[in-house]
């Protein structure tokens, strides 16, 4: 043994196409260290949910292999299902059942005795702040409560690996922040391996120890958030243009020394510069020289948005449209 923790998830060259020739996954590979939070980041349609469906045995890949908690998802789906908890994008709870009934049923399906399932349900309801609503029909829950119930259902059988497929999509910012704390706590205090998919750059940045950026069914970058940002030399320069720009704007800046990776997305211009502060005057001068009016300029350390732009060749906002 070389002392490194084993991988809780290993994914190798997954491919999956759907009817109608939609290529959802085009050779996805990554590995997740046991006990860590791993983020799969990408815009809608990048292949995040398809990856989760395959890893949770819901769907079969056309090619490639995947191990979850040491078991092959194709050869031992039953064992994988016992080892994983899943919080899918679509809430999977039963609307007409109470929070408690949902949890007890899930425990029973995982082979817990009714008494043990009841005890565990009570524990989780208290822990997720649902004790008061425990015996209310889940249909009456607010968005945040419903999401917490989802996570509780995923944890009933104390899984080794938890899948969270876009856990905060559609939640209010405040509720989202609470959910982030909860996810971080799960990883920190219980050592559960968490695979989190998200299309919020901030979420991946904040929670994931490592992340992979998915773009059109491929992993275009993988590493720690800091490492990925560190790979980008220099600063990010963002210029808000007074009117939408085009290739002409990119051409205007491409000749400047110390400025590179120029990309215009409608009224936003992204560029990278070795020294952001000293590049700004030259950039503004070049734009003015081409008669392009500028609304604002910011210089910042690289963000995941810049990482995405660099590897995917388009801005995240553009990919989401």
């Amino acid at each position, binding site marked *: 043994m070389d002392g490194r923790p084993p991988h809780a998830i290993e994914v190798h060259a997954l491919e999956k196409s759907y*009817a109608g020739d939609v290529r959802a996954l085009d050779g996805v590979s990554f590995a997740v260290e046991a006990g860590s939070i791993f983020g799969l980041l990408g815009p809608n349609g990048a292949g995040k949910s398809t990856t989760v*469906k395959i890893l*949770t*045995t*819901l*769907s*079969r890949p056309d090619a490639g292999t995947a191990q979850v908690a040491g078991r092959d998802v194709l050869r031992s789906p*039953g064992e994988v*299902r*016992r080892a*994983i908890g*899943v919080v*899918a*994008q*679509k*809430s*999977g*709870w*039963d*609307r*007409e*059942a109470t929070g408690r*009934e949902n949890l007890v*049923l*899930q425990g*029973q*399906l*995982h*082979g817990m005795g009714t008494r043990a399932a009841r005890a565990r349900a009570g524990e989780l309801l208290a822990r997720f702040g649902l004790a008061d609503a425990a015996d209310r*029909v889940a249909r009456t829950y607010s968005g945040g409560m419903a999401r917490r119930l989802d996570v509780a*259902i995923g944890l009933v059988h104390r899984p080794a690996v938890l899948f969270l497929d876009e856990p905060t999509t559609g939640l209010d910012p405040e509720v989202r922040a609470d959910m982030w704390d909860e996810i971080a706590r799960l990883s920190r205090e219980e050592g559960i391996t968490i695979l989190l998919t998200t299309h919020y750059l901030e979420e991946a940045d904040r929670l994931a120890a490592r992340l992979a950026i998915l773009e059109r069914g491929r992993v275009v970058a993988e590493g720690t958030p800091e490492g990925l940002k560190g790979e980008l030399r220099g600063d990010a320069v963002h210029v808000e243009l007074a009117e939408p720009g085009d290739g002409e704007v990119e051409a205007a800046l491409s000749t400047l020394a110390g400025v590179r990776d120029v990309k215009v997305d409608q009224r936003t211009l992204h560029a990278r510069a070795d020294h952001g502060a000293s590049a700004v005057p030259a950039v503004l001068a070049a734009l003015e020289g081409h008669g392009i009016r500028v609304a604002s300029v910011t210089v910042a350390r690289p963000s995941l948005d810049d990482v995405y732009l660099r590897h995917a060749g388009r801005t995240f906002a553009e990919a989401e449209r």
Partner: protein
Amino acid sequence: MTTVAHSWYMTIRHIRNLLRQPIWVFITLVQPLIWLLLYGALFKRVVEIPGFGGGSYLDFLTPGIVVMSALFSSGWSGMALLDDLDRGVLDRFLVSPASRVSLISGRLVQGALIVIVQSLILVVLALVAGADLAGGPVGVLVLIAASILLGWAFGSLSNGLALLVRREETLIAAVNLVILPLTFLSTVFMQRALTPGWIQDVARVNPVDWAVTAGREALAREVDSGVVLGHLGLLLAFALLCTWFASRAFRAYQRSV
């Protein structure tokens, strides 16, 4: 063992969810009574038509309405599955160790329980209204068994179809298209000899008619057990075929995810 336990958990879940909709419960229990009283009154005098064979129309109609109620309640079984499918409940069970069989069988067991309750209420009401069910308790048991088999078959068809079409509108249209004609293309309301020849031909291969025939024969004064067992056998074979269809549809759904 797991399959049995999980089917039971699912059955409890379905029944509990239904009981939370008291209006649904009320309609499910009262509708068959309305049919029995309404059709019983409307067609009361058809027994006087030469060739019907006389007797009381209520005696004749009771097994028909029991079977018809089983057909109608089971035909809609797939609607609840569609709801689970749309809300991600089905997928949640699929990524858990839940027995795959239980995802359908729980619904069918629930359907069978509804059939039993509906049938017993109908039989009691018929007796109160003066029906003479000569076959006695054994006859009633046979009638309920035939209704359960028919309900099992159409419940399987409805669930299988739900998994294939995955749209409520389509399922509603398909169920409506099938169940009323199947009821009228049988001897639910009318003596076989008085129906047109082509309906008699269709009825021979209509599972609804098999169930009515088995149940009505079992309640007759002189029971031909060959007729009863033969039709129960046909119903069992049909129910197995429908179960096979539902399991194929289930696999098709899993492949498409």
